[in-house]
């Protein structure tokens, strides 16, 4: 029997949604800016992953491998969008002379462009946070996400997970300490 190196990775499609969907969702949203399209692309990625799981050699992690597939799906998506000729849209909002005067000025000081660098930085921060969430224990991560990202009321989370409020705060406290440590190492 062939011995496997300690760095060999395995695929476990049963856990893909729980382990990777949120990370892939943020990764895709940054690139396509549409949650519905992002969801479709992730679904296609998982299905393509399932079909080609025989090609997985175990050299890269499961997530890296799924991201490689997702990247190709995103490229395909843009190819398809760009190939739809004659469907490009130009929006002109200036109909009267008075507003026409402001046109150039508005284009020059486009706040979208001005903040583009900040936006990219924040999106990268999002991915760093997402990666740090993986270092938490499963239940701890779920509770932390419900409270911090989904901003659900304490009482609702306690009912959902059948825990007391003081229990919840202990879990949150430990998770925050771990997140701060992880982000200090990888981001701050």
């Amino acid at each position, binding site marked *: 029997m062939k011995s496997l190196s300690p760095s060999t990775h395995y695929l476990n499609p*049963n856990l893909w949604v729980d382990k990777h*969907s949120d990370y892939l969702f943020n990764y895709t*949203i940054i690139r396509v800016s549409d949650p519905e399209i992002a969801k479709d692309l992730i679904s296609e990625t*998982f299905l393509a992953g399932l079909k080609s799981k025989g090609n997985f050699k175990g050299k890269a992690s499961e997530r890296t491998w799924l991201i490689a597939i997702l990247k190709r799906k995103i490229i395909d998506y843009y190819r398809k969008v760009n190939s739809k000729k004659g469907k490009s849209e130009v929006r002109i909002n200036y109909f009267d002379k008075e507003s026409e005067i402001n046109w150039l000025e508005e284009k020059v000081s486009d706040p979208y462009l001005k903040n583009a660098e900040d936006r990219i930085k924040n999106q990268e921060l999002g991915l760093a946070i997402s990666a740090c969430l993986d270092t938490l224990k499963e239940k701890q991560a779920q509770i932390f996400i419900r409270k911090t*990202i989904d901003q659900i009321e304490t009482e609702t989370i306690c009912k959902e997970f059948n825990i007391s409020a003081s229990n919840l705060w*202990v879990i949150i406290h430990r998770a925050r300490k771990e997140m*701060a440590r992880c982000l200090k190492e990888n981001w701050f």
Partner: protein
Amino acid sequence: MKCDKAGYVSDKAQYLDAYFWEKIKLYMHLFFCEFCREYVKNNTKLSEAFVRSDLKTMTHNDKQKLKKTLYEEMLKEN
């Protein structure tokens, strides 16, 4: 107030869940405790990072749908 309690109240305050008196006690503790001041500073920084990142999660329903699709595909394969 002891340091561990101060830590919990600081966390609750990040989610606007701390009571008024808890916050007063926390501020009194912070006046004397440099260690907890540092914790609160990092805790605030962490909250700001979450706000800035605008992190999204897939809804429970979306995840269930995705699981179902994957499961059906796995069944076809076997």
